[in-house]
């Protein structure tokens, strides 16, 4: 393999999926960088994203069939998911293997659902950590205090981190990092961990030091969203003289919008979505793969335009797979990029199917861009999504 090829980030090049909701047998190729999936409601776009996103996340959806099988090829590796129901487990990933230039992982993960119906990871031998079902728990590993919660980022933003944790070890040598993470998402860990890393902790100004100090995130938020600043709710951390420690409870993020500090639930849907997208990109810088479902929801056209510019820029180094119903999103593509469009349709016999634009459709799209002005004119006024079955034959 040449040096240039080795440096190319991993991306999904081909997917073959079976047995998940509307997906019966589906094969499709992807390109490095930006891929845009379009198609009518109910054609299976969301099901597709859910299934493929099992690569990097724990499955949180139940499968509709007793067995499922997914093969995902990247430009330099293969990932296979095979699963079945069994015993007390809701489902089990029997094999999960992924390789890229840096590492190869093979692991077995068992899942079951707790009483609330949320999936719980019982044991993950790769990560090598136990996670707990509910509430918080402090683990001291070297100089790092980990607080783990069974919450996802969505729930943390919505409700705050509920429950309380006593921190008794923060007066030590002053070089500790306080980190809060959740079992399936490390965004909060990143937000707070950044702010306290290497900080000498002093009793009287500890609370004031707990704030978001990541300039990069703040800059992006200022540029692309109405959010001007972030902080942790001051009331989250309380000094407890009994054990000479701090009690961290009901942690909430606050957002400065229109010169007012607002809770998550006070933000508009569009602002929440924008924040979430930028948080994901910045907190997971090492991730090569991002899935975004309908980024346009609740977002003003001007900000959507800026967001798509940002995503296109990011797609130079990452693979980004987007589903959309927005013509504005499609208009981000240049004339030589129309092969990045994937159309989803539902076939009564085959279930969810996907296809790229035929050469004829690509030519027609380019003509629309030349003569009418926008690719979206082709989508909105003509037959961009129509499947031209006669143009294809299976080899």
């Amino acid at each position, binding site marked *: 393999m040449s040096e240039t090829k080795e440096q190319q980030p991993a991306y999904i090049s081909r997917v073959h999926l079976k047995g998940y909701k509307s997906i019966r047998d589906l094969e499709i190729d992807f390109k490095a960088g930006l891929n845009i999936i379009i198609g009518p409601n109910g054609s299976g776009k969301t099901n597709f994203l859910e299934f493929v996103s099992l690569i990097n996340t724990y499955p949180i959806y139940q499968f509709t069939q007793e067995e499922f099988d997914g093969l995902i090829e990247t430009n330099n590796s293969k990932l296979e998911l095979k699963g079945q129901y069994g015993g007390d487990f809701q489902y089990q990933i029997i094999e999960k293997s992924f390789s890229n230039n840096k590492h190869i992982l093979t692991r077995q993960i068992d899942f079951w659902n707790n009483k609330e119906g949320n999936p719980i990871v019982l044991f993950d031998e790769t990560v090598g950590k136990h996670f707990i079902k509910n509430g918080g728990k402090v683990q001291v590993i070297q100089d790092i205090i980990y607080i783990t919660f069974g919450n996802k980022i969505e729930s943390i933003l919505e409700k705050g981190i509920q429950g309380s944790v006593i921190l008794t070890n923060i007066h030590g040598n002053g070089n500790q990092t306080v980190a809060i993470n959740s079992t399936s998402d490390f965004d909060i860990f990143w937000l707070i961990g950044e702010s306290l890393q290497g900080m000498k902790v002093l009793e009287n100004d500890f609370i004031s030091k707990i704030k978001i100090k990541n300039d990069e995130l703040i800059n992006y938020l200022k540029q692309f969203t109405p959010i001007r600043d972030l902080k942790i709710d001051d009331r989250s951390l309380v000094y407890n003289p009994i054990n000479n420690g701090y009690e961290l409870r009901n942690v909430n993020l606050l957002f400065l919008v229109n010169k007012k500090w607002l809770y998550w639930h006070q933000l508009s849907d569009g602002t929440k979505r924008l924040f979430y997208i930028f948080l994901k990109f910045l907190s997971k810088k090492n991730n090569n793969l991002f899935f975004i479902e309908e980024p346009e929801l609740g977002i003003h056209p001007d900000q959507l335009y800026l967001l798509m510019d940002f995503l296109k820029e990011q797609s130079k180094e990452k693979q980004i797979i987007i589903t959309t119903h927005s013509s504005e999103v499609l208009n981000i593509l240049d004339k030589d990029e129309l092969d990045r469009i994937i159309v989803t349709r539902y076939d009564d016999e085959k279930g969810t199917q996907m*296809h790229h634009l*035929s*050469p*004829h459709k690509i*030519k*027609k799209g380019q*003509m*629309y861009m030349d*003569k*009418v*002005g926008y690719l979206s*004119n*082709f989508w*909105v*006024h*003509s*037959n961009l999504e129509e499947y*031209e079955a*006669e*143009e*294809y*034959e*299976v*080899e």
Partner: protein
Amino acid sequence: MKQKNTKSNKIKIGVVGEHPSNDSESLCHLLRPLACENVQFKVILTKLRGSQLDNERMFLSSLESEFLSEELHHVIFIRDLDGVFSEKEKVTIRDNWSKRADKTINRQGIFFLAIAEMEALILSDIDKVNELYKLKLKAINNPMTEKDPKKKLMQLTEKTKRGKYTESDAPVIFKELVFQTVYKNHKGERSFQVFADELKDKQIIAF
């Protein structure tokens, strides 16, 4: 997947109307059974509506893109007059529009000006209306002269078991219409009869 050569000897006829899923599709249903060999009718610009057809900058460039990329031989334009034939100014506006559209596609346009809406064609086959709606209506003498055929059809069918006629019923009804009957009854200047004769002369349909 492997690409196949899509070149064919098909004669493609595009159809553009005020309401693609109703007007244009309806006309296709009426013409398809009479199509000459290799002739295919296809509704194009499927999501444009009447007022957007009048946005000429956008419409004409879209039309040109469709004409070239789909390799169409002819394009049929269907426009409502929204008036009566004596309103010459309205007729002139529509005619001028069709001339500009025709010029965009190398004079391969065929214009059908539905003087009194497409529903006049349905009223041209009153036997079929009676059959579908279980009515006993008498034939209407030249439905082209009806001022508001849509309203008339709605009134006539209001109390039927099938339910009052709506615009979205048009494609289903047009499938049932007898071409020869419509041809015979929708006559005169700018009529369906004249339009069908033009299609026949151009060897698009045969009857």
